[in-house]
């Protein structure tokens, strides 16, 4: 069995965060779920905290990306500058490809 999931995305790829409700522990905050973003960097592949949190092995390792969001899209009442971004680390299994 593969101990590694290969990276599917490259910097610049547009993605949408899955909006599936997390049953247990996850590192994907609700405020980005369902939102469109852009891959900025691949950090590497790491053991999956959703398995580690229950004493599991965390394998297969999941690619972890730095993903960029527009603050004005995340928050309906956002009053900051229109160019403001949120950068957040997200695991690949939470991401879906988004066509331009």
């Amino acid at each position: 069995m593969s101990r590694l999931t290969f990276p599917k995305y490259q910097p610049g790829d547009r993605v949408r965060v899955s909006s599936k409700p997390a049953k247990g522990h996850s590192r994907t905050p609700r405020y980005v779920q369902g939102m469109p973003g852009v891959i900025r960097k691949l950090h590497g592949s790491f053991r999956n905290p959703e398995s580690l949190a229950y004493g599991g092995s965390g394998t297969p390792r999941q690619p972890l990306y730095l993903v960029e969001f527009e603050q004005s899209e995340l928050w309906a009442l956002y009053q900051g500058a229109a160019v403001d971004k949120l950068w957040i680390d997200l695991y690949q299994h939470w991401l879906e490809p988004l066509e331009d």
Partner: protein
Amino acid sequence: MEKPHDRGGWDITDPIDQGEHPVMDWERRLAALGRVLPPGRFMSTDVSRRGIESIPLDQYSTMAYWERRLVGMETRLVDQGLLTAEEIDQKAAELEAGWSVLDEQIDLP
């Protein structure tokens, strides 16, 4: 379901209490216990976080930091089969009974 740690975008009505308080002895013991539990199943960042995050929101909001850590630790010790909830409750009751005896023996000025 809303979880206590996932609070980006929540309306906050009360200001966050950033006050300090004296460190209690049981808090030091809890921190020490966390260090001697074997890493992995019983002690890891992920397991520890999950135990704290699974505290129901209404309870979480009334608990102090180390009380949350204590409940989180109990959750994972029970989940991993090292202790049962009954064993923890029984031991706590024994200790509490012992303390009340001590209290009676101390002559306060």
